[in-house]
């Protein structure tokens, strides 16, 4: 076991390059909540600088500080010095685990291995959709499967209504999240997914979860998948759904879809087609505030996570006056649903779920 962070040259240089301007204070969802400098990117970069210079021993406090980050990347896009702090924090989390500072995600890793999902659920909801060969295959991911089943049901309905010939598989967790919290992707699970996906003969993999999307696209364990990978908003952007709502609609950019994957326009193209009364939140696109669920924060700091979600949600409501909040990420959706107060009247959906509902409403009207 080493007693120092292994950080490579590139990351060491980045730590030195942080000019400590503090601009990241303005955008960090956790700092917004706590006002404690140790929680924003500058604070953590300073800790790493001192560790690197041998001025500060690596302690449990350092390990906890580095875990307290949603990896939302808002600091990255606002950093004048061109530093990507969250990437460094993720690497440091791995080093820390290597040094013996295990964290609560060790347990989650065991759960994923045993149950194939992050929640340790023994039974998975099955939407009764076909699981055979088809040109498209839909991958739902853990949060959708076990926490937002109803939303996924509507997404599936939308694909059916849109006559997409797609199949599903007996998924296991893509397990990419392990990489972000100090551990490693579960190669065996990845292999199971790859085999099941390949068996479908699909040319295109559609994901509803932006995080799964990134893992399939970026992680070497999935490099031999041999199919095109599309987030569902990319896939559906040219569809004509033939429905509209007059309600005031707004959109929350999931960090994994926006800043991490650069997908900003496709969701908006879809929304503009169905909701002429579309308004952007003040902090949007590259500057959208995080919902608080990423980077393992919901597991490691659940109170922060829900408070961040509350704050983002109330800001959106206050600034836009929207009746409907759309997003396209099961984690954002789930966190917002949990955060929403009874007195808040806004309805929150994934885009695909919302369109399926609109179509069904219209069908009901036509039938009546």
């Amino acid at each position, binding site marked *: 076991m080493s007693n120092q962070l292994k950080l490579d040259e590139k990351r060491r240089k980045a730590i*030195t390059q942080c000019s400590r301007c503090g*601009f990241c204070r303005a955008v960090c969802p956790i700092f917004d909540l706590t006002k404690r400098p140790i929680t924003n990117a500058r604070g953590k970069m300073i800790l790493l600088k001192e560790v690197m210079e041998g001025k500060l021993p690596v302690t449990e406090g350092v390990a906890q500080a580095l875990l307290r980050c949603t990896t939302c990347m808002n600091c990255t896009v606002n950093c004048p010095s061109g530093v990507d702090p969250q990437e460094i924090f993720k690497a440091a989390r791995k080093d820390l685990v290597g040094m013996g500072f295990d964290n609560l995600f060790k347990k989650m890793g065991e759960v994923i291995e045993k149950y194939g999902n992050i929640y340790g659920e023994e039974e998975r909801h099955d939407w009764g959709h076909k699981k055979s060969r088809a040109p498209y295959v839909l991958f739902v991911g853990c949060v959708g499967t076990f926490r937002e089943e109803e939303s996924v049901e509507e997404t599936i309905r939308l694909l059916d209504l849109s006559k997409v010939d797609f199949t599903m598989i007996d998924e296991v967790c893509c397990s990419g999240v392990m990489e972000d919290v100090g551990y490693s992707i579960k190669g065996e699970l990845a292999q199971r997914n790859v085999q099941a996906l390949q068996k479908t003969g699909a040319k295109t993999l559609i994901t509803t979860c932006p995080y799964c999307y990134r893992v399939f696209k970026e992680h070497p364990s999935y490099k031999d998948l041999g199919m095109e990978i599309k987030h569902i908003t990319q896939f559906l952007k040219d569809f004509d759904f033939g429905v509209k709502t007059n309600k005031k609609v707004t959109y929350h950019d999931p960090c994994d879809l926006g800043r991490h994957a650069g997908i900003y326009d496709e969701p908006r193209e879809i929304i503009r087609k169905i909701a002429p009364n579309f308004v952007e939140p003040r902090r949007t696109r590259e500057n959208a505030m995080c919902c608080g669920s990423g980077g393992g924060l919901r597991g490691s700091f659940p109170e922060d996570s829900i408070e961040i979600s509350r704050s983002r949600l109330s800001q959106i409501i206050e600034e836009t006056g929207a009746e409907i909040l759309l997003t396209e990420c099961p984690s954002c959706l789930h966190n917002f649903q949990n955060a929403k107060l009874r007195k808040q009247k806004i309805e929150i959906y994934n885009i695909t779920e919302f369109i399926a509902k609109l179509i069904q409403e219209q069908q009901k009207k036509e039938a009546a």
Partner: protein
Amino acid sequence: MLEKGKLIEIVGQENFTDQLEELVPYSYDASMNVHRPDAVVWPESTEQVVEIIKFANEHKIPVVPRGAGTSLSGGVIPIKGGIIIDLARMNRILEISIENRYARVQAGVVCDDLNRALAKRGFVFPPDPASSTVATIGGNVATNAGGIKGAKYGTTRDYVLGLQVVLPTGEVMHTGSYTMKCVSGYDLAKLFIGAEGTLGVITEVTLKINPLPRHAMTAVATFAKLEDAGKAIFQTMTSGVLPSVMEILDKVTLKSIKENTDIDLPDAEAMILTETDGFTWEEVEAQMEVVLGVLKENNPISIKTAKDEKDRLNLWKARKSSYATLARASNSFVLDDVTVPISKIPDLLVGIQEIAQRHGLVVATYGHAGDGNLHPQILYDEYDPEQVERMEKVEEELFKLAISLNGTLTGEHGIGLSKANYMTLEHDPVEMALMRQIKKTLDPNNIMNPGKRALDG
């Protein structure tokens, strides 16, 4: 050892820390100075600040007020240890009185948050430091922050109507007024503006606010000769029109931007970015015509103008990216803010380049030409002791140069720690003695931000 029980009693457990990992980020600001505090408190009211100060004064414990910690002078570094008073939780906008043209805020309000609230009513607090997304009004007052619009709109000092300050003995002082004019008594508020937390903790600020100009027009001109750019600047500033922006970028800055970004720039010795603003287009354009006339008379290589937002942002790109480009071009840097009479800008720029060459470091200079406030950014490597030494030499000579041109060590960042050793370059013994006397009178136990500005002697 600090008796922390009392502090916890005052602010509550959740608003106190002495945990090592939390103290580490408080040992830094945006300068190269480092020192650990012993504890940090986040007071939520003036009453709590009073109690903290009384406790510190009684036990002679150093206290450093802190806003966002964006100080570039080491002003916020607790060089003698002690207690950091972080004002981040005193961040309420207390009152916006449009009819009386003022806003009253707690010291921890972030500059941009105030301006967002004011913009909704068509008003603005004009000083616009580049750090305004995070810097606090308390920090702005304590450093007399200025910004790009300084030449026309002045600095924080020009907007402070009144202050609430907790003095080093724990008494609360209200100074100034809610009126546009006031000559009642000594102007004590001014004493605290730019005092860098050495005389007390500012807890509340009453600021004059301006109507927000509705339109702006931008122009950029490049010059093959520094002298021509220099003439263009002071001729514009005396043309009868006061541009809202008058920025200059020197050739080292331009070269770095050219090499490191995709921004298209001609080879030039200097670039000027200027803007006129106002309430009608006619007004803005008429002013710009005068400015363009002056620019054209001084042999520019090129001139571009922009009216709509997209083109304007394009012209701003080079200026806006200067800090970031240079910050990425080296491991470490020091960002200074020497200021000279406007006509001396070319001499300052030439002098800086001579110094840089003599010591073999890159120094890129840009800044607020309209008020003579330039930002030489000295690039070096903090892990190379020999380069550190050269950087220090460059700074020393830079300060001497500015003073020899009738300038000042600092236009907006403050003296703090970084420039404390040079105070006597600018201030004669009589003035130094009076400053020390004032400090001693207000702060007999020297608890407020000690070790700064050479005031301890």
